[in-house]
């Protein structure tokens, strides 16, 4: 794998975002799969972004709506359908 800086890192990062978000087209996927195997800079960048995204999904606390709020909304909904 190349240790020298990527020749067009800005473009690579934009494609990398599309790959991570599942929004890349076939051309972009092919480019990425070929390039990332050869470029250490992009490979590490990709790993860090994936790690951050995974941490957001798995470790960021997800606040649950309080039961009293759900109960209140049900009451308000009943009222709105009666009026």
């Amino acid at each position, binding site marked *: 794998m190349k240790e020298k800086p990527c020749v067009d890192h800005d473009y690579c990062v934009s494609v990398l975002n599309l790959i991570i*978000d599942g*929004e890349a087209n076939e051309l972009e996927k092919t480019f990425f799969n070929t390039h990332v195997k050869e470029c250490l800079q992009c490979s590490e960048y990709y790993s860090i972004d994936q790690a951050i995204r995974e*941490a*957001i999904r798995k470790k960021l606390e*997800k*606040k649950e709506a309080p039961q009293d709020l759900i109960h209140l909304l049900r009451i308000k*909904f009943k009222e709105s359908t009666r009026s």
Partner: protein
Amino acid sequence: MDCKKLKFYSSEEKELIFEDEFLPHIHSIYNFAYRITFNEDDAKDLVQETYLKAFRFIDSFQKGTNAKAWLFRILKNSFINEFRKRSKEPVKVDYQEVETYYNSDEVDQPITSDLRIEAIKEKIGDEVSVAINSLDIDFRTVIILCDLEGFTYEEMAKILDIPIGTVRSRLHRARNLLRDKLKVYADSLGYT
């Protein structure tokens, strides 16, 4: 709301929509409200306002379509149009957590290259929360919608009323900011 697409539902149909299509997203909606207000009472008010508007405009909702995106869009509009104006609470960022970590012995623990990815996944979670909370609201929003809630670029464009190109560039900038904020931490793990 698009009046051309109005469909007048019966009370029974409305109840089904409410229970089967609106209510299943209540926790995601509340979590998003909390992430943009940083306050449980404000988040409750915002969610209540969102659902009240959803009830009022339920006839403009097409049954079986993307209720989650529809509700998120209402919430975003409520936040921008009304809630944000009356909210005087400054943004709270808890840097104590980061400071505690950097002053601990954990920082100096050696780590092998084979474990770098696992280590960053394991420990970056705590830092991510602080880093996301410190992002500007527009950047925080796209990160939550995309990475936490799994919306597509197209859905985010509709929720936020911005072109897909703007979604992409905003997400790109948000990720760069996140990476910069987490770089010191990643460096401490010997990752970069």
